[in-house]
C-alpha cells in the first residue's frame, strides 16, 4: 500500500476543504471498498479524509413518505428501517441481497453508491485498463468479460457498476445531496453517474472535495408495490450477474405508471425508460412485459461471454413484474 496522510475533519466544511485542497485525496467511509482497493494498489490516495466522524447518519421520513438518508447510514440499519421496508421494499431487498452481514454493518449508503467496478482487469494493477490508467487499453473485450456491460459501454470501457442498492435508488428517482467547495447542490442519479465514452476514468460528476451528505428519495406512492430481484452465482455473498428493481402501479386494469432499473448490465444502474414508456397504458401481461424489456435491450451490444445477460435480464424483468401484478405467465 502506498503511504498516505490521514485526516479526521471535525465538520462537513473542513472535510470539503481538505478534499478539495489535496488532489488525489479520498473520503473514507466504511472503508470496505476503498481500503481493499488501496491494498491492491488500485487506489493510491495521498490523503485519506475520514468522514466517519461527521454524523450524517440519520434517516428522516417526510410526511409524504419521502426519505432523506444520511450519507453515513449503515447498509444494515437502512435495510431494516420500518419506513424503508414499508414504503420501498425494493430498497430494503436490494441492500439485503448485497455483500454479507458483516460488510453491511460496516458499509455506508454513500460508500455503496461510489464503490468501484469489479472488472478483474481494473483490480489487477499489472494489467492495462483505461479506467485505471487512461489510454492504456481495455483487455476485457478480448478477455474475461462475463460479468461486464451489455448496455452503455464504449470502445474504451465496458465495466459494470456493481451496486445493488444503486439500482433500487435509480428506480426510485433518488437524488444525492452534495456539498462541495462551491456550496450545496443536488444531483439526480442520472447526473451523478457518467457513461464511460472516451473517458472511463471519469465515473461521476463529483469534483475533488464534493462530499455526498445525503440521499434523497422522493415519495413514490406505488413504491409499496416494488421488488428487487438478483441473479448470482451462489445463494448469498456474491455480486449480481443480472438484477432488476421495479415498482408498478396498475389501475383499472392498465399500467398507469412503472419504474424499472437494471443492474449488472451497464456502467451505471440502468434506468429502463424505453421499457417503462412501452408499458404505460398497457394491460399488465407477461407478453407485454417481455416486449417492453426486449425494446429496452434492443440497443444492447453483447460480447460472446456476456450475451447470456440479455435473455436472463429479460426473464428476471418478466418474473418480477408478473409477481408484482399477479400476471400469469
Amino acid at each position, binding site marked *: 500500500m502506498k503511504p498516505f496522510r490521514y485526516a479526521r475533519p471535525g465538520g462537513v466544511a473542513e472535510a470539503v476543504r481538505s478534499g478539495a485542497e489535496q488532489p488525489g485525496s479520498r473520503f473514507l467511509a466504511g472503508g470496505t471498498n476503498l481500503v481493499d482497493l488501496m491494498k491492491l494498489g488500485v487506489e493510491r490516495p495521498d490523503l485519506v479524509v475520514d468522514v466517519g466522524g461527521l454524523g450524517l447518519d440519520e434517516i428522516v421520513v417526510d410526511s409524504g413518505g419521502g426519505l432523506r438518508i444520511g450519507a453515513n447510514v449503515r447498509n444494515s440499519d437502512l435495510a431494516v428501517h420500518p419506513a424503508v421496508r414499508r414504503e420501498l421494499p425494493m430498497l430494503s431487498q436490494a441492500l439485503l441481497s448485497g455483500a454479507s452481514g458483516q460488510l453491511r454493518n460496516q458499509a455506508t449508503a454513500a460508500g455503496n453508491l461510489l464503490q468501484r467496478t469489479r472488472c478483474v482487469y481494473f483490480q489487477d494493477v499489472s494489467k492495462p485498463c483505461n479506467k485505471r490508467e487512461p489510454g492504456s487499453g481495455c483487455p476485457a473485450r478480448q478477455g474475461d468479460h462475463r460479468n461486464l456491460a451489455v448496455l452503455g459501454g464504449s470502445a474504451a470501457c465496458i465495466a459494470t457498476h456493481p451496486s445493488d442498492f444503486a439500482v433500487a435508488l435509480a428506480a426510485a428517482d433518488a437524488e444525492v445531496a452534495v456539498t462541495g467547495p462551491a456550496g450545496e447542490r443536488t444531483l439526480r442519479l442520472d447526473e451523478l453517474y457518467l457513461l464511460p465514452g472516451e473517458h472511463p476514468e471519469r465515473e461521476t460528476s463529483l469534483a475533488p472535495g464534493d462530499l455526498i451528505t445525503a440521499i434523497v428519495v422522493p415519495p413514490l406512492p406505488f413504491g409499496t408495490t416494488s421488488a428487487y*430481484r438478483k*441473479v448470482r452465482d451462489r445463494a448469498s455473498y456474491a455480486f449480481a450477474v443480472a438484477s432488476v428493481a421495479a415498482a408498478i402501479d396498475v389501475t383499472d386494469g392498465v399500467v398507469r405508471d412503472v419504474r424499472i432499473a437494471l443492474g449488472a448490465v451497464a456502467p451505471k444502474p440502468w434506468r429502463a425508460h424505453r421499457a417503462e414508456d412501452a408499458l404505460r397504458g398497457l394491460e399488465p401481461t407477461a407478453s407485454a412485459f417481455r416486449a417492453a424489456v426486449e425494446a429496452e435491450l434492443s440497443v444492447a451490444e453483447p460480447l460472446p461471454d456476456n450475451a447470456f445477460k440479455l435473455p436472463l435480464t429479460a*426473464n428476471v424483468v418478466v418474473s418480477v413484474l408478473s409477481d408484482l401484478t399477479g400476471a400469469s405467465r
Partner: protein
Amino acid sequence: MTTPTQATTPAAARTRTPIGAPGRLENDAKGGVGTSPQRPDGALKVTGEFAYSSDLWMDNMLWGVTLRSPHPFARIRAVDIAAALATPGVVAVLTAADVPGRNVFGLELSDQPVLADDVVRYQGEAVALVAADHPEIARQAAKKIRVDYQVWEPITDARAALGHPTWNRLHDHPAEDVELSRSAAAIHPKGNLVRHLKIRKGDPDEAADVVVRGEYSVGMQDQAFLGPESGLAVPDGEGGVDLYVATQWLHVDQRQICTALGLTPDQVRLTLAGVGGAFGGREDLSMHVHGCMLALHTGKPVKMVYNREESFFGHVHRHPAEMRYEHGATRDGTLVFVNCDIYFDGGAYASSTPAVVGNGGTMGIGPYVVPNVRIDAYGVYTNNPPCGAMRGFGSVQTAFAYEAQMDLLAAELGMDPIDLRVRNAMAEGSVTPHGQTIDSPAPVAELLQRLREMPLPAEPDGADIDLRSLPGGVANSTHGEGVKRGVGYAVTYKNVAFSEGFDDYSTARVQIEAHQGNPLVVVHTAAAEVGQGLVTIEQQICRTELGVENVIVHPKNTDVGSGGSTSASRQTYMTGGAVKLACEAVRDRILTLARDRTDAPLDDAALVDGNIVTPSGAVLMSIADAIGEAVIEETREHHHRPTEEIDPETGQGFAHVQYSFSAHRAVVDVDTELGLLKVVELACVQDVGKALNADAVVGQIQGGSAQGMGLAIMEEIVVKDGKIRNPSFTDYLIPTILDTPPMPIQVLEYADPHAPYGLRGVGEAPTISSGPAVAAAIRQATGLPLTRVPIRPEHITGT
C-alpha cells in the same frame, strides 16, 4: 510390515522456540477405537487460542516477501536489485544466483526452480526474495526490483501443447476435431508431455448394440484453505535452520529443502505449525526454501505469510480436464466397451501430475466391470498455473464424465440409471481395467440400492415457503414459479494411499511411563494434522492398544521418521497402522517387565483400563506397577503391502493397495428461467471398512460432499491467456452454509482384511461422487446436456 526401531538424530539444540510453535496436545477426553472422543485441539480451535502458522512470532524476526512473475511465459534478461537493496529497512534481496544448493524442487519430478533464473513458465512464478524489518517495507522494496522480461506467447491449451488435434467445442455442442494444432514450443527441455497412461484391455472394437459418446470438461478448482501459506525459518547459528511451517508431509519437504540449500537432513529440521486446511494444496513447497534462504543469509528468523491473492499463486490447483468418452452396451444394459481420452492440464510444472494421471487413468471408467477398455490419459505442461494434488486427485474429473455417460446410456436404453449401474457394478473379485482383482468387499450395488431406498425430501408445498429453501435463496430471486426438481445419482471408487510401486510407509514412536501412579503415553509421529482429526485417532489407538486414558500427542516434527503425506486418504490407515504397531511393541515390553513381578502366565494377558488382566478379566497388576521407574519407548514403521508399476503399453498391474467406495444422491431445484439452483439434499452412502471415529467420518463425508458440490455449481479459477482472473474469495466462490443442503449419511463397515482394524480411507471418495450427482440432478431437471462444470446460470438458461 515392521522394521526394527531406528535411532533418530536429535535436533540440534534450539536456542529459542517461537511464539505460536505447537505444544503437546493433551485433554481429558476418553475413548478408544470406535468411539468419538473430543479432539485434543478442538477446544483451542473453537475458542480462537489455537496458533496457526501465520501466528508464529519471534522478537527481532524479519519479514520475507516474494517477487513473482507477471507473465505466464518469458525469458528473464536481467534482474536489477540495487534500488530494492538500498531501501532503508531492507536486509537482503536474493535471486536465483543466491540459491545455495541445486536450484530445483518438485514432488515427483524435480523440474521447478526455487527462483526462476532463465525462463518463467507461469504467472506468479517466484523470481526474487526480500527480507526487511517490516512486511510493508519488504513489499515496497520488492516492487523496486527491476526484471527485464522478453515476453513470449503462452501455451494454454493442453492438446495444442502436445500438437494433438484440438477439439473445437462450443459449450454443449458436439465437437469436431480441428486440424492438428500448430506444434507448440516446448515449455520444458524434454517436451510438453508429462505422462501418457495407456490402458488396453480386451478388444476395443467389440460390437455393441448401443453406443453413446460425450465430451466433458472440468474447470480448475482451488483447495480454498483458509490459512494462507506461512512459516517461520530460524537459523541455528551453525549453518543449519529450523523451519516451522504448515504443510502436509514434513519429510518430503525436508528432502527438497536440503537439495536446494545444499544441507544435510540433520541441518534442516522441520516442525509442523498450525495448519489452516490443506486439501492437497500444501503437498508442494511454498515459502519453505525461500524462508530458509533468507534466514540463513541474514542470520535472523524470517517469517513469511502470503496474503489471499498471493496464495492463489502460491499453491497448485486441481487439474482442469477435457475428456471424450465412448460407451458401448448390449440392449439389456451390459457394458461391452469403454474408450476414452483424458487430458489433464498440469500447468507449468509437474508437481504430482504423473500420479494424478495414474489415478485418473486407472480408475477412469468408474466402479464398473467392463471387458474391453481403451484409456489414453495425458498429463501435459502448459503455461497455465501449475496443478497438482487436490482431494480426489484425478478421479474427481473423470467421475463427472463417466457418470454422465452412464446416465446418457441409461436414457438411450430406456433404463433406470440405478439399474444400469447395478447391473455393471464391481464387486469383490471383479477385475479392474488395469487388471487388478478387487480382493476386499466392494459394495457398489449396495450403496446405490440403499440410496434408492432412502426417503426423498418433501416437495415444496406452496404455502409458507422459506425463501432460503428456494433457488437464489435470500436474494428473493424466485418465488417457486418455473422451478423444476431433479434427482441424480453417482457412484465412485478411489484408491487409498500411494500406488504404482511406491514404498509407502509411516513411522510412529510411542512412549509410556508411570506418572503419579498412572500410565502416561506420548505418541509422536511426523504425520501432519491438517484439520482431519489424525491427532484424535492417534490418541484413540493408543488408548485401545495400551489400555490407558492419558495420551499426549507430541508436536509433529522431523525428530521422528517420516509419516508420509497427509493425502490420498491414507493417514488413518498408514500412520494409524504405525501407531498400532508401536503400541504392540510397547505392550510386549510392558508384559516383559511384568513377568519380573509375577509368576502368573501372561501370554494371553491384555491391557485394559490401566491394568494387566487375564482373558477372563481378572486384574493381575496395574500397568503403572509393571512399568515402575522405566520409560518404555518403541518406534515402528508401517509399510502397506507392495503395489507394482503398471505396464507402460497395456496399463496392467497391481497398482493400488485399497479402494474406498461412495455414492451420492442429489436432489436439486432449478429455476430454469433465472438459471438459479438450490441443492435441496445431498445424501451419501459410503463404505469405510471400520469407523475408528464415527463423528470424524461423518465430518469428512460432509466436507467432501460440499467441496465436490462446489466444483459442480460454482468453484472455478478463471484463467485467461495463462493468467488467473479471480484470485480472491470475493471472486472465487465457494459454497456458503446457505448453499449447503442437509446431508443424510449412511456409513457401512465392511472390513478390508488387509488394513489395520479393517478400515478404509474416508476423506476423498465423497468429494468425487457428490459433484457428478448434483450435475446429474440438474440435467434431469432441465433436460440439458450440461457437459461442463461448474454449471453456471447461463448454462441453465441456455444462452
